């Protein structure tokens, strides 16, 4: 198992190197001039130049790159120019917010989409099937920011069921002590149920917004692979052996059908992380998505690079996790690994 993981990590190295290079070039290609931005509104050209030198932006690109990679090697992602804080600290403090939201969104989506997909496959061609398809597709057809604003309008502004969309907690609840960074978990660990309730109520709308968006790919995949499995010989054998419907569908069909679904989860997660950027903006969520967007629009290189790198590492880690999960479900992989 360890060697498999080791080999996997080795194969992702080129990907990470690619990500580093692409991000570096992309951020340098941004049109803004951070020096002018940070020189302030009344700076002279000399002042701008002075700042440019102090930021090291006057050096040739390859030199900047080498310096960047050296810093990376030391675990230094640089400082954000706009907030002045080390990017590492910022990411560490913001990542849990994004991760909590995205994971909850993904879980919500799976909880709804997987049964929908199974139902659609079992009742293939019926009105249930068509309805599932329409519902899931409709969810992915709206821009997330629009869904988010609509939900805020209905559930906060009109109905008042949901708390104000101002981040992870309302202004008057204090955050739980930082253990995992996930408010839900931390508040439970410390037994602070009021904070748990507060943070959960803040999470519901944005998580639903994300969940609705990722219904379609998961439901689609579940349905397709369920159909394939239901038509397979071993399901027929199971039926011919008189196994009841529940055993056939859950133990025989569903577990096999989950294999391709699990593999697509990585992709859906990546998809959600992208959508997250917009959702965070709508819900004033202090995650790393909104952080990166602001930085990108301000040509603030370091956070963008740090963000992308973090995401790349997470993506790789997630895929590794999925491989392991795949191995747990599928003995064929386990043995070979």
């Amino acid at each position: 198992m360890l060697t498999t993981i080791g080999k996997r990590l080795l194969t992702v190295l080129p990907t990470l190197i690619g990500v580093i290079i692409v991000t570096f070039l992309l951020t340098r290609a941004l049109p803004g001039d951070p020096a002018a931005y940070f020189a302030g509104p009344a700076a002279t050209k000399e002042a701008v130049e002075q700042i440019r030198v102090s930021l090291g932006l006057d050096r040739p690109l390859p030199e900047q790159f080498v310096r960047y990679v050296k810093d990376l090697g030391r675990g230094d992602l640089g400082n954000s120019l706009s907030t002045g804080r080390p990017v590492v600290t910022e990411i560490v403090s913001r990542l849990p917010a994004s991760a909590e939201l995205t994971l909850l969104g993904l879980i919500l989506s799976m909880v709804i989409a997987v049964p929908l997909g199974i139902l659609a496959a079992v009742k293939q061609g019926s009105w249930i099937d068509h309805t599932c398809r329409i519902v899931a597709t409709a969810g992915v057809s709206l821009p997330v920011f629009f869904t988010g604003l609509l939900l805020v309008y209905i559930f906060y502004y009109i109905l008042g069921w949901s708390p104000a969309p101002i981040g992870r907690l309302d202004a008057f609840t204090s955050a739980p002590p930082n253990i995992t960074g996930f408010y839900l978990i931390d508040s439970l660990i410390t037994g602070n149920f009021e904070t748990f309730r507060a943070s959960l109520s803040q999470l519901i709308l944005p998580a639903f917004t994300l969940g609705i968006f990722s219904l379609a790919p998961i439901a689609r995949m579940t349905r397709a692979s369920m159909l394939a499995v239901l038509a397979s010989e071993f399901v027929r054998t199971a039926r011919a052996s008189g196994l009841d419907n529940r055993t056939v569908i859950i133990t025989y069909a569903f577990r096999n059908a989950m294999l391709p679904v699990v593999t697509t989860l990585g992709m859906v997660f990546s998809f959600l992380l992208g959508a997250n950027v917009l959702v965070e903006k709508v819900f004033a969520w202090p995650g790393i998505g909104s952080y990166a967007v602001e930085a990108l629009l301000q040509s603030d290189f370091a956070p963008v690079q740090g963000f992308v790198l973090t995401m790349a590492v997470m993506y790789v880690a997630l895929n590794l996790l999925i491989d392991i999960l795949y191995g747990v479900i599928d003995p064929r992989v386990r043995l070979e690994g």
Partner: protein
Amino acid sequence: MKRREFLKSAGALAATAAVSAPSVISSAKAQSRKETMLIVSESGPNNIDIHGVGTNVPGYEVSWNCYDRLISHEMKDVNGTPYYDRDKFKMELAEDMNVGDMSATFKLKKNAKFQDGTPVTAKDVKWSLDRAVSVGGFPTFQMAAGSLTKKEQFVAVDDNTFRVDFARKDRLTIPDLAVIVPCIMNSGLVKKHATEKDPWGLEYTKQNTAGSGAYKVTAWTPGTEVVMERNDAWVGGKLPEVKKIIWRIVPSAGNRRALLERGDADISYDLPNKDFVELKSAGKLNIVSTPYSNGIQYIGMNVKNPPFDNLKVRQAVAYALPYQKIMDAVLFGLAKPMFGAAAGAPTQVAWPQPHKYNTDIAKAKALLAEAGHPNGFETTISFDLGFAGVNEPLCVLVQESLAQIGIKCSINKIPGANWRTELNKKVLPLYTNVFSGWLDYPEYFFIWCYHGKNSIFNTMSYQSKTTDDFIDGAVTAAANGDKATYEKSVKGFVDTAYADMPRIPLYQPYVNVAMQKNVSGYQYWFHRRLDYRTLTKG
């Protein structure tokens, strides 16, 4: 009419919802809620030290409330709103100010202490002002605007006495000591965190407040929130009533409005004009609108390059702009028109003041033909995406209007981060922008925007000997108290500016603040940010 009706029903709906909905805040928090002010805005500070590199405007607000200056301004009443009095100063850290011919002497309040308990001394004052003129960038520039450029000008006479020596006679020197930049810092504390590379301890103050001000920052998550708590030992003025300020960043304007309407937020000051107008008519909230002091939104043209190097083209544009449409559809009336002065109206000794152009497409066409562009030309109109709410519809209207006289312009959105870079290149042919000066003097505005020394805000690259002479003349006259020459000079540069028309003023924008009915004590300041110290809630 229909819109109104809809608004009413929406308002009613919201009101019922507010009554029937369970309160978001549990009773346990009710007390702290009462003593806390929740402010929501689109963006937050990136640095809480105004001396820092690239501190943004929200950062100024923190500095204003968490630091003291030697002096500040008194308030006067303008249309029912407390408005800072340009000419009257009040003491803040200083107990007494004595202005002489070439220097000013300040006595510090004896009981003044920094937030860590160390007393405020003249050494701290000197160190702070030295810092302001030394760190470079914006603070140094701002100091220079009041002829404060050298450390030698600041003298700590004794622990309690501080003197500023004037470099030259300049009537902006004293007002410049009352802006945000010359704030007084705890030099001992900051020096402890200074390093060789960072002799002024900028890294420390970027994240921490080290002043004697009424509030101190207790928590700050960039882009998310700033929490400030009252400094109970403050001596700069009357102890503020609000114990805690929570400033949350809510990027979506719609959500900010919702927060206000639902009563969850206490104050917000950056909302679209439309929302302010509607909230005002709905009457649930207190809306205060005050014109920017010494500021205008304008259309600028690059006079160095064709086709806008031609005066007739510029005049044609001035006649083609849809002034009233902009006032109605973009600003919803929340601005002061800077166009269409009566033909015979005399020029005022004031700035801003309206010009005499009005929308007149026929005249514009004729002028354009005279200029040799009977069929118009193509160009680009640029704006700062950071203020897209106003700029975008404004540019769309301008674009449409100019198309009527044959000028086809495409719209170029420039992200906020790049805006200054682009302006600094001075190549944008046509653009819209806002400029306002902290110091409310006409010549201050003109030095920045029209003088031939071509500062960054002379975005038109305008060069005119006549204008330069008038501006310089006004500065000298003001310093010497020569009222007649001063008035003549001001009228002179205003007239020249309107004759040459390198930039076309559109309107004087309003600062709009929406507050819950139970919030009072709002004051208008030149920097247009909130002063928490006078706010009350009850």
